[in-house]
Each structure stands twice: as structure tokens, then as C-alpha cells.
């Protein structure tokens, strides 16, 4: 039974939302009849960006609602996609007549629930488009890229899509830019120790004393291989290799780099990882435009991290560089 600072485990999702809304100091508000939030001020006529998914990955998704980021976020129960009526309520609360882009991780549950919501929205006259994020190189071969899971690369896609939704006027165009960002993002994770679901208090998987799982998914789904613990540099080399050859990233490319904490890994370790990633990228003449290191997309208290790369082009860079402000991500 893993200790957690919670009250009734059944209330965690609602209490988390309450705490988050307070932390936003008025920048977001709750959407009625939904475990969802929206920006307090949304420009009329704006194409809106709705992100969402299961809870348990905080600050994803609701921590990324804000200026030049998402307009709203809808959260399901822990590790469970939000239900269609919740998504629909959020969609209706957001729509400014220009439609809503759905952006979420590619999981059976999310896909089905957002699709049902999209059908319901359509029948109510609200246009939606969907970008499913599938950045996790570990989760399926390139030929079946649409079978891959969405992990921390979500953050890059939200950043770019949020910028595009702030600047562009049509849902089609925002969709195009968001899909491009998704297509140019690749990630790879590793887990050292499991997280746990509040309602059970049990770890979501078991792993041996000196073992790690390369490619572990965000809910404790298995990865590509279980191995003996190895030095950071060796581990990072293996992960980075898999990422680089997947897109592939090439000499002369300019990228944004995210080293994401899955939960319990120390910043010290993440910085040691960054050192090696940068050395490997420098070797390949890949330049890094910006680096994000921290807990953006977690799996409760899982120990481990992921590395994500977004390949920039002129258009993506312009959206990436826009200032942004939300609970979990501020860019000056």
C-alpha cells in the first residue's frame, strides 16, 4: 500500500481539479457538468483547442491551459479517458463558432470516447477535428505508427497547436499545423520503479531490484525490453539512437528537446541525462533550439523519464517561440 497525501481515493480527481483551478488564480474556470476547465477569457471567433485524457499524469493535461496554449482540458478518472458527455460539455463550452480541435494521446479509450463526443458535437452543429498524438517510438514499429501511444511529446504538440490556434483562423489550418508537429515528434521512455493508482494503492507493475524497462508506457504498459540497470550514458545512448533513426533526425536538423520526469526521478538525474543527449546530438550536428526538463507528463510516482525531440521547420518554430503562460508551462 503506497502512502499518498489524499483524502478519499474516490475524490482525487475532483479535488485535484479544485486545487488546480485555485492555483490558476482566475485564469481558468470550471466547465459546468464536466471535469473540465477552460480559459476565463477566450477571444470570440477563435478556433479552440481542447486537450484531455485520463487523470494521473498531472500536470498533463489541465496544467497546459492558457495563453497560446490549450483553451480547455477535460480529465477522466485515473488512467481512464474522459467520458463522451464530459468531452461534449467541454466542447460546447469552448466553441466560438469556429470549431474545436481535439488533441490527445492515442489510446483505445481516448480514441473511442473523443470520437463519440465528436459525433455528438457534430449532431449539435459544432465542427471538430482530431489530432491523436503517437510519439512513443517504443510502442509499435514505424509501419504501424498509428498504433503507437502518446507520451510526453504531447507537450510539444500542445505548444505548437496552442500557438497555431491563437494565430490561425480556420480549424483546418490549426489541424494541419498540429498534425505536422505530431508527425515531427518522437519520444522514448524508461521506467525504474512503478507508480500506483490511488484507489488500489498497488503498484501498476512489478520490476526487479536492479532492473529497468526500456520503453515503458505512461500507465505501466510494457515497453521494448526489460534489462539490468546500466550507466546513464549507455541508457541514454540506446534511447536516443532509437529516437534519432525513427524520424529520422539528420545532420543540420534543429530540434526542441524535452526530458520528462515520469514522477520520482531526481532533477539531478535528468540533468545528467541532458548532458549525454546533448553530446549525442552535437555528434550528429543536430542543434537544439530549446530544452525543457521537468515533470510535465507523469505516471503518478513512477521512477523514470522520457526523451522527446521535435524537429522544427520555420513554421513550427514561429509557433513554438510564442510566449505562453499556464499553470505548468510558462515561456517568456
Amino acid at each position, binding site marked *: 500500500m503506497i502512502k499518498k497525501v489524499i483524502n478519499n481515493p474516490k475524490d482525487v480527481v475532483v479535488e485535484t481539479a479544485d486545487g488546480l483551478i485555485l492555483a490558476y488564480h482566475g485564469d481558468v474556470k470550471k466547465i459546468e457538468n464536466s471535469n473540465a476547465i477552460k480559459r476565463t477569457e477566450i477571444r470570440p471567433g477563435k478556433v479552440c483547442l481542447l486537450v484531455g485524457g485520463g487523470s494521473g499524469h498531472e500536470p498533463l493535461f489541465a496544467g497546459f491551459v492558457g495563453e497560446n496554449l490549450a483553451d480547455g482540458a477535460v480529465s477522466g*478518472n485515473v*488512467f*481512464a*479517458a474522459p*467520458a463522451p458527455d464530459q468531452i461534449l460539455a467541454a466542447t460546447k463550452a469552448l466553441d466560438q463558432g469556429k470549431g474545436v480541435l481535439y488533441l490527445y494521446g492515442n489510446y*483505445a479509450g481516448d480514441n473511442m470516447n473523443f470520437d463519440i463526443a465528436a459525433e455528438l458535437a457534430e449532431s449539435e452543429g459544432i465542427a471538430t477535428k482530431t489530432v491523436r498524438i503517437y510519439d512513443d517510438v517504443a*510502442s509499435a514499429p514505424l509501419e504501424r505508427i498509428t498504433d503507437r501511444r502518446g507520451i510526453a511529446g504531447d507537450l510539444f504538440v500542445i505548444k505548437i497547436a496552442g500557438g497555431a490556434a491563437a494565430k490561425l483562423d480556420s480549424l483546418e489550418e490549426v489541424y494541419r499545423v498540429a498534425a505536422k508537429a505530431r508527425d515531427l515528434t518522437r519520444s522514448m521512455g524508461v521506467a525504474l520503479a512503478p507508480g500506483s493508482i490511488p*484507489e488500489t494503492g498497488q503498484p*501498476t507493475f512489478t520490476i526487479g531490484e536492479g532492473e529497468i524497462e526500456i520503453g515503458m508506457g505512461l500507465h505501466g*504498459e510494457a515497453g521494448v525490453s526489460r534489462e539490468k540497470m546500466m550507466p546513464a550514458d549507455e541508457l541514454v545512448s540506446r534511447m536516443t539512437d532509437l529516437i534519432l533513426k525513427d524520424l529520422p533526425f539528420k545532420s543540420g536538423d534543429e530540434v526542441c528537446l524535452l526530458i520528462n520526469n515520469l514522477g520520482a526521478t531526481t532533477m539531478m538525474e535528468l540533468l545528467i541525462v541532458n548532458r549525454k543527449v546533448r553530446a549525442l546530438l552535437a555528434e550528429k550536428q543536430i542543434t537544439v533550439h530549446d530544452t525543457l526538463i521537468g515533470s510535465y507528463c507523469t505516471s503518478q510516482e513512477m521512477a523514470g523519464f522520457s526523451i522527446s525531440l521535435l524537429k522544427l521547420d520555420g513554421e513550427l518554430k514561429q509557433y513554438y517561440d510564442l510566449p505562453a503562460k499556464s499553470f505548468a508551462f510558462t515561456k517568456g
Partner: protein
Amino acid sequence: MTVEKLSLSEFKGAMLAIADGMIASKDLLTQADQAIGDGDHGIGMARGFEAVKAMLSEKNFAQIEEVFFSTGTSLLSSIGGASGAIFGSFFMGAAKGVKGCIELDAPGFKNALAAGLEMVKKRGGANIGDKTMVDALEPAVQAAMAYNGNSLGELSLQVYIAAEAGMQRTKTFTARIGKAKTLGERTLGFADPGSISITLIFKFFSDYLKQMA
């Protein structure tokens, strides 16, 4: 003596029995999902059938399809995740098979099952062998179609037995869909959690009919 059909209120009672059974199966289902998924299936199903119970105690029904449909929407809106959409779709689909009925008999149950399966496949796109609840549901529907009698009790037992066999077969499959899919060969030996759930639903239904007889 076996039961031939259920009145509207008896069917409501059956759904309540299914709900109680599923709530009591929480830990078993969660453990099944811990082995090859993300460990939340029992939590979700329990939450879903709590909502079904609350709905059943509040609503009055005029037709069998309303019980199916409201069970489906309750599951859909309270579970979330893959199983919310799939089990919600199953019951909402099943409603279409019994349009206008005020009792549930064997032919009606067959139609409901077939319509439920159709909706599940339409929503989730899973086929036999993907290691999902379809691996239990589809053989159950086939067994129902093969049944020529007119006892709802017998039919439901056949359905349960076929689902159970299908569920057992999922142990020999590697997952190709859902959160277990990347586990590949490591899913061998474990039954798919959703296939256990649909089997249990049929079991509790069959038990209810047996106990009525």
C-alpha cells in the same frame, strides 16, 4: 423448469443482480488488468455498475430497450476509458435489438446480443484474436445463434459457457489492441480483463435466471 422470458421488472432485477455481481468483482478485474494493462479495469467497472444501480433505482421503464439503453449510457458516462466506450456501446447497441419489447424472451435476447456485438465492433474495430472482450462476446453471440430452443435460461447458460471458453482462449493470444498491445508475447498466459468482464456479466445473468427457476 427453466425460465422462458423475463418481464420488464424481472429484467430490471436481473440487471441489478449483474450490477451487484460486477461491483463485487472489482478486485478480481483490477488484478487481471494489473497483469497486462494499467490496473484500473475493476475500478472502472465497479464505478460504472454503481452508476447503473443508482440509475435503476431512480428511473421507471416502459420497455426492455430502455433498460439496456440506460445501462449503456450509465456505463459510458461513468466509466470512461476503453471499457466505458466498449461496454457502454454493447448495452446501447443491445437496446436496438429489442425495440418495442416489453418482455425479454430468447429471440429477443439473441437479437440484443447480435446488435450489441455489432455496435462494439463498429466502435472499437477489434476482431477475434486481438485479445479484447470481443474474443468472449463474439463466440457467445455465435452460441446464442446456434441455440434453437425457447428457454431464456438455457440460452443464457449457453452464452455464458461460450463466453467463458472464449475468455480462456484469450490467454493464448498476444494483445494487438488496447493498453496491453505492446506487451506482445508477455501477455501470453493472462486472460484479457474485458473478456473476463463480459463473461461475468453473462454469468450473473445466467445465475439470476437459474435462481428464478
